[in-house]
């Protein structure tokens, strides 16, 4: 019986830890560790989107972000592992796509993209999940020194 108790305890403990390690602050901290030694964390953008409904567009979340001319920025994208969705980040200047973490031509995904800004402005950052799947992700904006 003692063995059963231990097994239940461990199973519950690990199940709990596993959930917490995903779509929450741990994801932010984990992603912030990926920015590299030469980068300084500036901000995070957290996104949780439900699965696309039938006959609806792919859900996305947008954020405004002020970027300064002459600064070398880095965008790191991290997905929560307990969600199926794989995030795609896009940075727009008005209607011009400047940066994306997904290359449509090669279908290559980039977990981080550097952006050397030459125009101070308010930009728009979008995050959506491929194929409109449910997903949770975080984008870390950092400054490369």
């Amino acid at each position, binding site marked *: 019986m003692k063995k059963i108790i231990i097994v239940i305890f461990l199973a519950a403990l690990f199940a709990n830890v596993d959930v917490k390690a995903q779509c929450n*602050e741990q994801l932010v901290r984990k992603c912030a560790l990926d920015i590299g030694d030469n980068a300084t964390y500036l901000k995070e953008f957290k996104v949780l*989107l439900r699965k696309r409904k039938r006959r609806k567009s792919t859900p996305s979340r947008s954020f*405004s972000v*002020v970027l300064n001319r002459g*600064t070398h920025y880095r965008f790191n994208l991290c997905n929560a592992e307990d969600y199926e969705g794989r995030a795609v980040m896009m940075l727009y200047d008005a209607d011009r796509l400047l*940066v994306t973490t997904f290359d449509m031509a090669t279908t290559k995904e980039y977990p981080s993209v*550097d952006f050397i800004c030459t*125009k101070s402005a308010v930009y728009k950052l979008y995050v959506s999940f491929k194929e409109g799947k449910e997903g949770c992700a975080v984008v870390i904006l950092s*400054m490369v020194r």
Partner: protein
Amino acid sequence: MVKKILVIFCSALLFVACTPSSDNPDVNIPDHVTDEIDDDESTESMSDIIENIASPLEMANLIQASGVPFSLRYLAPTEDSDKFNTNFKKALALGVMASDLGYLNMYKKSGSVINYLRIIQRLSSDLRIGQFFDFKLLKDLAKADNVDSLMYHSTASFNRMDKYLRENGKGELSALMVAGVWIEGMYIATQVMEENSNQKLIERIGEQKVMLNLLVMSLSSFQSEPNFPALITDFKVIQEQFTNVQITYEIGLPETIEEDGKLIIIQDEKSIIHITEEHVKLISEQVEKVRNKLISL
């Protein structure tokens, strides 16, 4: 007996599993859950736009990278901080101190940050956002000279404080914090300029015309709040000094480089700042007046 133990144990586990961990205060981490494309500019509040107008680190990074020596003279004094005795003054001072902390961190002066951390702790507690500022952790990081972690945790703390204020009907305090960060960043930059003229810094000062316009718009949305009209007037006087600063744009060819699997994109459009040292001098004088007035309120 064993059954009883099992029931109690499972109940306890269930309770633990359903209780948010103290390490993860915001289990509802994602900012929003959306079912539809959210791309309507008109639905966006001004507070979202100005949220990151003024970064405590970016201006300091530019100054530090320019090789300008560190100086404590540029920073707001830490003595007599009891004079910040209203929420208006406290929120402004919090922004000023955040900017100073960013400057200290960027120069890796962790030995000098404790006094600033202490004031920030008091101000944030008084504004009821102290739960986002882990003074002990930051103090320990400063003492251990762990500057990278100190920068991460202090920046993340300010981001959370600001977010909490904006999402809990205290947007005016958030706007004041941003105004404090901006004026102190500008003060440090213009003071540095007087001693170490630097083209990059001149241009960064000039392009603050855009940020200041956004900031004044944001502050103006709280025009009816006490003390805001005088503050807006002060910022508008600085705005007047930017009238002769011109910003033009030039289209160029975008450049994409892939290095070791990493993508680097160099923007094609350039903003060109037309500003003279005389303009900087006028801006500098006005920024100094307003900043000194705000920290001595």
